[in-house]
């Protein structure tokens, strides 16, 4: 068993509870436990494009420093990695980590501000997305060996969104032809449906003020997957998940949407395949209930005999 310092971020505690709980449950099954770090704060969201705004970098650097202390308290914490689930947290933390490692003067300024928190970051952390841990540390082989209920019948279209692949400093995979979600879905026994819109913008924060934009984007993303035979989508970002899930429901209610496709977090698929209790998925939070599909495919009941 290895233990990782895990940074949740705000979404995982609110509208993506199923993401977090399934992630922690499967991490234990894969002997790579995610242990929540204490006293975490906001990741800093929407990384600033300015190079001299140190205020905006204090929060993420504090996270890195606290995560390091957390690792020292872990019995099996042998790595210097802080693991995230949310793509946005991953991106912000990674970029800031990269920046302060390049600019020592900036880090000095930030560390000076962190003195009152009794924190000091020493450039000794790596930010990893849980997908990277699965790919690089756990391995797909171990993952597929742990599967107790292969997800036969699920035709999953991986949707990456923007933050997992952009910009270069934060990318976890090839920007034009990523494969991490594809391999993961295959390891779980489900079928991969490639869609060219795998990183087509979900509409992001326009959900707040320009819902119409999100409708258009989500409509295209879902339609591209459906046309190619998908019966569900898999995502790694709570905002993508919300937009695609929620907006499909709205569109259906407005009666111009087609039969919606359920949206899974990748850890939910893992939980289903690894035999984690169904309630950890918090499917009640989903706007498009995946349970009818799972039931139809015989994936919700007891283990297949």
């Amino acid at each position, binding site marked *: 068993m290895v233990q990782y310092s895990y940074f949740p971020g705000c979404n995982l505690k609110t509208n993506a509870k199923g993401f977090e709980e399934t992630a922690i449950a499967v991490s234990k099954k894969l002997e790579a436990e995610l242990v929540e770090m204490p006293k975490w704060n906001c990741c800093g969201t929407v990384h600033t494009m300015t190079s001299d705004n140190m205020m905006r970098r204090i929060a993420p650097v504090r996270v890195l420093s606290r995560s390091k202390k957390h690792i020292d308290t872990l019995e099996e914490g042998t790595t210097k990695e802080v693991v995230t689930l949310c793509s946005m947290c991953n991106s912000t933390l990674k970029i800031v980590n990269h920046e302060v490692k390049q600019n020592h003067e900036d880090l000095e300024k930030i560390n000076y501000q962190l003195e009152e928190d009794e924190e000091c970051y020493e450039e000794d952390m790596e930010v990893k997305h849980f997908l990277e841990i699965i790919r690089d540390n756990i391995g797909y082989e171990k993952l597929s060996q742990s599967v107790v209920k292969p997800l036969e019948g699920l035709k999953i279209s991986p949707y990456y969104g923007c933050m997992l692949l952009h910009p270069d400093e934060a990318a976890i995979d*090839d*920007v*034009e*032809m990523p494969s991490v979600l594809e391999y993961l879905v295959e390891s779980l026994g489900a079928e991969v449906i490639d869609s*060219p819109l795998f990183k087509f913008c979900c509409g992001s924060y326009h959900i707040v003020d320009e819902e119409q934009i999100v409708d258009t984007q989500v409509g295209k993303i879902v339609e591209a997957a459906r046309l190619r035979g998908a019966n569900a989508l898999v995502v790694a970002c709570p905002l993508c998940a919300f937009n695609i899930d929620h907006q499909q429901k709205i569109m259906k209610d407005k009666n111009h949407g087609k039969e919606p496709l359920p949206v899974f977090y990748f850890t939910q698929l893992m939980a289903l395949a690894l035999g984690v209790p169904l309630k950890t998925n918090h499917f009640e939070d989903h706007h498009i209930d995946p349970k009818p599909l799972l039931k139809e495919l015989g994936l919700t009941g007891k283990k297949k005999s």
Partner: protein
Amino acid sequence: MKIGVYVCECGSNIAATVDVEDIVERAKEFPNVEVSRVYKYMCADPGQEIIKKDIEEKGLDRIVIAACSPRMHEPTFRAVLEDKGLNPYVLEIVNIREQVSWVHENKEEGTEKAASLLKGAVLRIALMEPLERKKVGVTHKALVIGGGIAGIQASLDLADMGFKTTLVEKTSSIGGKMAQMDKTFPTLDCSQCILSPKMVDVGRHPNIELLSLSEVVEVDGYVGNFKVKIKKNPRYVLEEKCTLCDDCVPVCPVIVHDEYNQGFAPRKAIYIAYPQAIPASYVIDPDACLGIDPLICSKCKDVCGPEAIDFDMQPEIIEEEYGAIIIATGYETYPIENIGEYGYGTIPDVISGLDFERIISSGGPTGGKILRPSDATVPKTVVFIHCAGSRDPSKHLPYCSKVCCMYSTKHALQYKHVVHDGTAINFYIDIRTAGKDYEEFYQRAAEEDHVIYIRGKVSEVFQDGDKILIKSVDTLTGETVELHADLVVLATGMVPSEGTKEMASLLNVSVGINGFIREAHPKLKPVDTAIGGVFVAGTVTGPKDIPETVSNASGAASRAAGILSQDELEIEGTVAKVEESLCRGCGMCVEACPYSAIELKAVNKYGHTVQVAFVNEALCKGCGSCAAACLNGAINQLGYTDGQILELISALGEQ
């Protein structure tokens, strides 16, 4: 010792900021100065006459001239000295224009600086010893590496001037990329039709020795005297016996992709690159043939009437001497497999510009019909994406490849001429039509042939059913563009060929950051390299179109002829000299020398074999790097010895 000092006013160029009269007066007090004068233009004939007269009448033996940069007129004044029987190296030029008057505003300060520079020069020249210009013989034979249009043109020019020339080509035929092209812009001449006469000329020119399937593997020596090893790979078909009857091809059981047709057509293991190939002979592809080793099949040999096939041919090494070398190893197109946003080359109907050349060529795989690769149907909408992998410093090539705007325009035009009801759309960043008649050609495509131009870079391309979805933006209207195409042609840029990289390291010529060979001077020496006797032609130095490549090649040929036409070459006297007794053979100078002019040699010293640095004066450019690097002070840069430089510094430090 009698030193003459001459100060030039250069009109007002110098006189405005330097009190020339004052420094002339001061110079009279410097040691050994016999005469000190000022003149309006020293470089003009009367100015030269003054110096000549003084040398004659006053018996001067050292000359110091305070004027412009020695880059301008050092040869002029050296000739003056030589004319009067003095050694050309007892001349010192003080640059009081570029380094004083042009960069200073205050006349007082300018004058002081000029005076101390002048004093330094006077002190230094007193220590100057006459230097000897050594002479080396010249081998009157040229080597041209690479048989594309650049190599062909350079070889023909040299051969026509009467010089024996060896043309080395890696593949089985000369012709290069130009042979693969269908038509050329802006005249729409058939490429093969204008190229093949030149290829035939190469094949039959008495002064040209053509070595196909050959590679240069080793180069030694220096300007006028290169020793070159060339590896000639076996053709397995005797050129002189092959009658091109084609009997061998039908019986050959091995089918592979044809490189000449960009893989769109099959060929056999025995083949001829294309009908006009020179040398005009079939060739066996040893990687595909079943007859080379082990001998499993010999069907072609069995049917060959003239008995031209020999499976036992071996590679041979040819050793030859040359006076000058021209590198013409050309380019490759940027691989579409590198361009992720356009599918990493995995979408069958997304092809490169060179692919499209083969598809529209009447001698190509479709016989001139425009058919797309996936299902061999006629594409009704063709999208041409300019700058595919170019002008993109963060991901691909930072530079502009110059020809892509024009070749995409040509492709669109050719497509419209064949498929009249089709739509041709060009997505561009800027249209660059800098060439004779190029802009008119572009206007014609847009206005007469209704080729559509949309200003915007395509962001993504992907397969959508049997069509290809293009996502872009029209930056003139600010609207996003989404459309379906049947065929997408990527205008990929030029990158240095594999051969260019190999030759650059073999010949020690430097390359720029983009991998193209660096010219000796980008403007004034565009076909020279930093290595004497090594010239460059065509796209080895950067993207070029055909007319530019051809004139570049002729330029290189004439520069090479400048060496080949001499019986002896004079070498600059200002070379590095090793004091053997001080040298301890550490080799630091060998490392420091940018021209590979120094090597360690074993010599017998007091009964012991020791390593001593040896300078090849023909290769030495007199840069002084070795003299600066030598910890023991064993290397002296002739003309710039430590003693001379110390005198200079002490004069400057007197202020």
